[in-house]
């Protein structure tokens, strides 16, 4: 098995049963091919198909003997509405002037997400199929090299999650263009260090320039000896899996640490990547400007849509930059760069929040964490294990497909055997 089979894209829409795709009823009518252009032009003016842009207005059938039959969609037909009573007057006029005879038919409600879906859809009525237009690495598949790197980062996350006797969720934020770890975190629900002083920001976090060591063997995860399997792990401390568990903690912890019900690994890793940003770029004026593009902008008036576009353009631009730097300079030996040159390198390409970064999480994030990653503009999310009760990236909710949000990341599951979490005591 090659590594790229281990990385599954989790799409924006739940997969439909290929043969039972949702449909809606429409009024259609066959038309004289001679009038087709005029009729379609008029229909687009008076009855545009706003929510059915993937549906073709005209269906063309070649009858026996080579004769061509054209049918056109007039408008949506509402449930249990077999009459033309509710058809708008302008459409009524068109129907009578061309002597059309409307009938009800079904078309597929959602745009096809795969070629197979599209082929099924066209059995009802022709639709158009546009394979994903935005370009995020991996959606159309990973190269062997990229999937190696994905597996290595996921392995770091798993190692972090199991590094202490109790298994928790862990997060690793990565700059994929430099194959560099930006920040790492474990859940701190039961081990919150309240120190907020900037000096508390440990130097070790800054040495995050440690590129993944080549000694890590991604295959190792897949060839764990079965002798580990009998160790039954408890995942009760995994924040995203059991967000309500914190309240069960009976006594005050003896250590200097407090509890913090919301310090899930993703939240902590965002905090530490923000701290890194402040440390590396202490007085960055442009950040103020950029942060105006914040998440309450929806509430403002028309100007918000313009801002939104600016954000999108920026993100796309960054993606292109990343793609370029990835191909042109494969930085393999980041550890050789000293902090100074690293800083100056970064200065030229300081990202806005986590734009362009990936995050590796052992478990599918809960709703809070998934939304935090929207806010912080993460580009891709990789997780190993689904979160059936509170997961927000496919299990319960699917934030990557919430159209109203101002940022959309791509989500992937990295298929690991559960034994990856079971450490051998050897």
């Amino acid at each position, binding site marked *: 098995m090659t590594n790229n089979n281990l990385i599954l894209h989790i799409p924006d829409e739940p997969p439909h049963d290929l043969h039972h795709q949702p449909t809606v009823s429409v009024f259609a009518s066959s038309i004289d091919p001679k009038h087709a252009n005029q009729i379609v032009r008029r229909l687009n003016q008076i009855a545009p198909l706003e929510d059915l842009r993937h549906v073709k207005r005209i269906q063309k059938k070649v009858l026996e003997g080579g004769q061509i039959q054209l049918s056109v969609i007039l408008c949506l037909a509402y449930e249990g509405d077999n009459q033309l009573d509710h058809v708008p007057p302008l459409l009524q006029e068109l129907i009578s002037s061309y002597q059309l005879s409307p009938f009800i038919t079904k078309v597929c409600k959602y745009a096809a997400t795969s070629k197979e879906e599209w082929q099924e859809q066209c059995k009802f009525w022709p639709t158009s199929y546009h394979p994903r237009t935005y370009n995020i690495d991996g959606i159309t598949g990973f190269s062997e090299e990229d999937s190696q790197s994905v597996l290595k980062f996921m392995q770091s996350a798993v190692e972090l999650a199991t590094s202490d006797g109790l298994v928790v969720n862990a997060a690793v934020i990565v700059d994929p263009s430099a194959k560099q770890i930006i920040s790492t975190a474990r859940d701190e629900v039961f081990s919150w260090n309240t120190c907020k002083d900037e000096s508390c920001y440990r130097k070790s976090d800054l040495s995050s320039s440690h590129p993944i060591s080549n000694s890590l063997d991604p295959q190792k995860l897949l060839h764990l000896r079965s002798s580990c399997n009998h160790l039954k792990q408890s995942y009760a401390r995994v924040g995203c899996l059991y967000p309500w568990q914190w309240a069960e903690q009976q006594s005050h912890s003896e250590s200097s640490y407090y509890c913090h019900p919301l310090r899930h690994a993703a939240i902590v890793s965002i905090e530490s990547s923000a701290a890194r940003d402040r440390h590396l770029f202490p007085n960055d004026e442009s950040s103020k400007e950029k942060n105006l593009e914040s998440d309450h902008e929806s509430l403002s008036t028309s100007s918000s849509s313009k801002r939104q576009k600016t954000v999108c353009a920026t993100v796309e631009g960054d993606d292109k930059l990343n793609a370029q730097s990835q191909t042109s300079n494969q930085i393999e030996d980041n550890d050789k760069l000293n902090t100074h040159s690293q800083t100056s390198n970064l200065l030229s390409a300081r990202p806005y929040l986590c734009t362009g970064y990936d995050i590796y999480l052992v478990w599918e994030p809960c709703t809070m964490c998934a939304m935090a990653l929207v*806010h912080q503009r993460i580009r891709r999310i990789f997780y190993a294990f689904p979160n059936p009760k509170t997961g927000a990236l496919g299990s319960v909710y699917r934030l990557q497909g919430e159209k109203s949000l101002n940022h959309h990341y791509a989500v992937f599951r990295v298929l690991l055997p559960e034994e990856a979490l079971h450490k051998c005591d050897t």
Partner: protein
Amino acid sequence: MTSPNTLIFMELAIQQAKLALDALEVPVGCVIVEDGKVIASGRNRTTETRNATRHAEMEAIDVLLEQWQKNGLSMTEVAKKFSNCSLYVTCEPCIMCASALATLGIKDVFYGCSNDKFGGCGSILSLHLKDTASLNKGFKCAGGIMATEAIILLRTFYDQGNPNAPKPHRPLAHQATT
């Protein structure tokens, strides 16, 4: 029906939002109330921290968690405290904050304007609703309280762009709808 106290607390949340505006942050503010007393307040700090998750709610929650544990409260006691607290926030909590508030088991949430793109209390997701499958107990929620004031602050921020531009006087008419 909006009780007079609701308006008083929302007025305090709006003052927090104004502090955010003065600091060139998106103007959203909140207060947390226990037994009729304000015990914590917070305002948006996303620009200052470069951490887009530092919403007003998160700021106020962190204050309480630290304080209560410094006072020696156990987690069970902290949970009990939250179940007796009300949040007043100028804008509908986003999906992240609504999820956090449900995790903490807050008693109820009163908000100003709704959040059409990110709202987690009915606009996009309804995380305030009880959900037995995930054990989410949810929380009571009421919106539209002094929404006009909240929106004016946000418009001031986005439309004027210029932080030094004169801010409009606080409108006196309250248009609470719940």
